[in-house]
């Protein structure tokens, strides 16, 4: 029987003579299954789950109340005002969409590059993507003001409106990009989950569970013919999702870059936004998975090596983001446009200097700690650094959105943006929504892609005598 290597083994060191194992703990196929299914099969989740769920539900309640207040009163309850028409709602939108990108990167791009270590974390990361995109979609959805005519965003023929959307507008591109992203991510996630849902179905002990998981798994049996088409479909979906994930944040950056506002109108935005998105997304994956693996005893599946690899990606993308911050100043100076130069000087030394330097410190300086292996292999240190990274990435979007808008072309309309309690409450509430969905996912769905993990376990061309 195939088993993985013993748990005392430290798999973060590379031995040139053999590959470091991706799964530890001496688990065989059955034990991998029980490790993952026990979360859903245990009669009650850990107490921490209830505590977190209670907090998250309170925040969701707050979010719902504020949304109702917003819809009944109008967008004036936010801090947005002339000339800062894009305040926190759009900052939060870009922040959440960015978070989602790591999930697709792990599930699609690392799949195409045959990075087998992705198998332990891709399911949770994809779930995170979908929940982050839900939180992201919420903000522009209510930012349109009159939510009851949100269908005007889509090309629906009506005699009533007698109008079509402008297909050359970046904001419409955004509707298509984020809509496609949410749909394709969900398809990809669900497709990947089919075999594991079948596992849940086959292990279900009560009638209701068997029926629900039975319907969700669509009658999957694991036939070799089905696996053949499934693998082909999965590869195609990965190949589709790869350019898609790059296009989504590119198009989000077009919302800014295609306009002519100083500080926005720049060609560096698409790569800079994508790098930032992956940076913040990986930070969020670590922030979620370090506690989750401790809470649900997944240390043998989500090993230190997985966490260390993600830390390395955070350092790499953090450097890219830092490089973009620096080169932005050079481009502003090199453009010779006075307003452009002034905008960037204002960003770093103007009224929002505190936001700029918070961003710079959290995104560029603090992640440099990951150069030390000790930090890269200490879970609590990773979480702390990753929380800083996410604070920094939120501030990056704040700096881009607010500093450029507050200093528009007419000096008489310059002002200092201040959020209202609704802005702050809705942002905090969106974390509640995100956490609620993630906690439900942990409790009721396969957190780790069991079938994929089993397929990378050392089993091929080995005979029983090697192990027993």
């Amino acid at each position, binding site marked *: 029987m195939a088993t993985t290597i013993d748990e005392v083994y430290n798999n973060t060191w590379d031995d040139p003579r053999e590959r470091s194992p991706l799964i530890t703990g001496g688990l065989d196929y059955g034990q991998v299954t029980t490790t993952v299914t026990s979360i859903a099969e245990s009669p009650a989740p850990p107490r921490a789950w209830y505590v977190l769920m209670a907090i998250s539900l309170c925040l969701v309640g707050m979010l719902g109340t504020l949304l109702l207040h917003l819809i009944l009163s109008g967008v004036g309850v936010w801090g947005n005002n002339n000339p800062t028409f894009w305040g926190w709602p759009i900052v939060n939108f870009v922040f959440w969409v960015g978070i989602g990108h790591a999930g697709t990167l792990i599930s699609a791009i690392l799949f195409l590059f045959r990075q087998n270590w992705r198998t332990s974390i891709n399911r949770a990361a994809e779930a995170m993507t979908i929940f982050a995109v839900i939180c992201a979609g919420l903000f522009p959805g209510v930012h349109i003001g009159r939510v009851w005519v949100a269908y005007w965003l889509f090309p629906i023929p*009506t005699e009533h409106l007698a109008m079509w959307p402008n297909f050359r507008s970046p904001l419409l591109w955004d509707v298509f990009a984020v809509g496609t992203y949410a749909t394709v991510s969900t398809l990809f996630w669900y497709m990947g989950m089919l075999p594991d849902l079948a596992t849940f179905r086959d292990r279900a002990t009560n009638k209701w569970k068997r029926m629900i998981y039975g319907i969700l798994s669509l009658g999957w049996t694991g*036939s070799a013919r089905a696996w053949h088409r499934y693998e082909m479909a999965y590869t195609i979906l990965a190949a589709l999702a790869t350019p898609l994930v790059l296009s989504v944040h590119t198009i989000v950056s077009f919302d800014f870059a295609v306009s002519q506002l100083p500080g926005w109108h720049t060609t560096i935005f698409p790569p800079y936004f994508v790098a930032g998105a992956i940076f913040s997304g990986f930070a969020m994956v670590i922030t979620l998975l370090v506690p989750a693996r401790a809470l649900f005893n997944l240390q043998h599946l989500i090993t230190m090596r997985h966490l260390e690899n993600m830390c390395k990606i955070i350092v790499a993308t953090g450097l890219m983001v830092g490089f973009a911050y620096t080169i932005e100043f050079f481009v502003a100076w090199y453009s010779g446009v006075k307003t452009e130069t002034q905008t960037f000087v204002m960003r770093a030394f103007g009224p929002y200097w505190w936001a700029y330097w918070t961003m710079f410190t959290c995104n560029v300086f603090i992640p440099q700690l990951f150069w030390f292996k000790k930090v890269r292999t200490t879970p609590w240190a990773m979480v702390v650094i990753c929380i800083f990274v996410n604070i920094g990435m939120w501030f990056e979007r704040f700096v881009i959105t607010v500093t450029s808008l507050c200093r528009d072309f007419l000096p008489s309309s310059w002002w200092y943006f201040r959020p209202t309690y609704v802005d702050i409450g809705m942002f905090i509430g969106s974390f509640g929504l995100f956490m609620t969905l993630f906690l439900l996912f942990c409790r009721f769905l396969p957190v780790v892609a069991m079938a994929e993990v089993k397929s990378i376990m050392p089993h091929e061309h080995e005979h029983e005598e090697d192990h027993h």
Partner: protein
Amino acid sequence: MTQSTSHNSHSAPATGPTSRLVGILAEFSTPDQLVDACDQARQAGIRRMDAYSPFPVHGIDPAIGITRTRLPFLVLAVGLSGLFVAMGLQYAVNATDSIGPFPGYPFLISGKPLFSLPANIPVTFEVIVLSSAFATFLGSLALNGLPKFANPLHRIARFRKATNNGFFLMIEAEDPNYNPRTIRNQLEQWGAQSLEEVHLDLTDHKLPSFVRMVFVLLLAVCTLPPAILYRSLGESNTVPRLHFNPDMDWQYKSQAQQVAPDIAVGDEEERPMFRDLRAMRGEVPGTVIRGQLRDDRAFYTGISGAEAGLALNAGGASYVSIPNAQDEAPAEPDWLTQFPSNEKFAVNAQTMQRGKQRFDIYCAVCHGTTGEGNGMVNQRALTLNALGRASWVNAKSLHDYTVVDQPVGRIYDTITNGRGSMGPYRSQITPEDRWAIVLYVKALQDSLADAVAEDEEGKWVPVRTTPPAPVTEAEPAAADATTTEAETTEASGGQN
């Protein structure tokens, strides 16, 4: 190691007409054994078989004889249609006037083309990805025959290991090389740990008929809301449409020349939008409207020196005669005697031409093309006077000695602010054009300095008059309803 059972664990008897043998299911302990067994079965001539494993086992495709799936071609076809659908939609919607029964909507933005690849690629790309992803997902499910909830394999308890840690091979009974007597031995030889027959239950398990009825009814009910919505929002109607939130139908708005709207909410007392009740807002003190900075005051007022500033600040002094108040004429200011000179105005032939053209448009109707005060309006008005239907004040001859002696600043001021019964022209004629008219008027006066003309009595008299010994007072302009029309064109009169 072989523990063969002829029947599975479920309660229904698997014999008789109620069930049919589908095949035989063998379990293996490792993926390698499964691949070996598939290989052996294939060598034994068996074609109708399938393997079941918790994860894709590599090398099993050739062993079973699975050929490469057609899925990529399906996805390519759907993706290409996505390309054409997206391009066609964008072209039809944004670059044509109508698509079928619906009107198109071309957006004209900064003269940019209505359809251009760079701007239309993002949406095209997203539609291709979206349609391809659906083709991949639904296509793979369809090729795999999913969803399929009724599968005889699910009735076998042992088969539940197939999604956990079991490796199974099923050989179908319909295979021509399936021999019920030898197949068990063969499978055991190939390494099977356990064998079970798979039976298809043929007993009737149809849904009760009322369930189907309820389902159809529910489906019908579900189509009602969209139908009602389309009926009320999409189609042409003769009655007011269903309106969910009429929030933008009634708004506060300010209209020209009216008082500011009342923005009181509910039972609140009247609350005007602006405290001074005016809907039209004046200039903010200390500000200058764009393009209205008039720092060259002499040019704009016709008055030289410090007085010019006062005249400008007062909004321009009015010399338009007011009945009963005409003896309160203000003191004459220090009029400009020389033409101003700046980037807007210079004395030259071009300006003279401009002045003639403007004079012929605005002045000649009353004052006449030669300035003798015999324009068409004047002639008609005098006829009406004679009939007693108007009380028109004769338009001034510009060759009158009182006008000839006037400084240029004074003539400019007359055009700007009006005088006597002549109305102001400051809103019709720009300052530089007014100066051009003044220039032309001066030229007219010079050109007819020695000319003579026939008067009403047939006598030849000089066009330019000379001051008489006793100063005559002109009749005040009578404010009569019938003169209003004439006044608004041009009429010059009064005591000057």
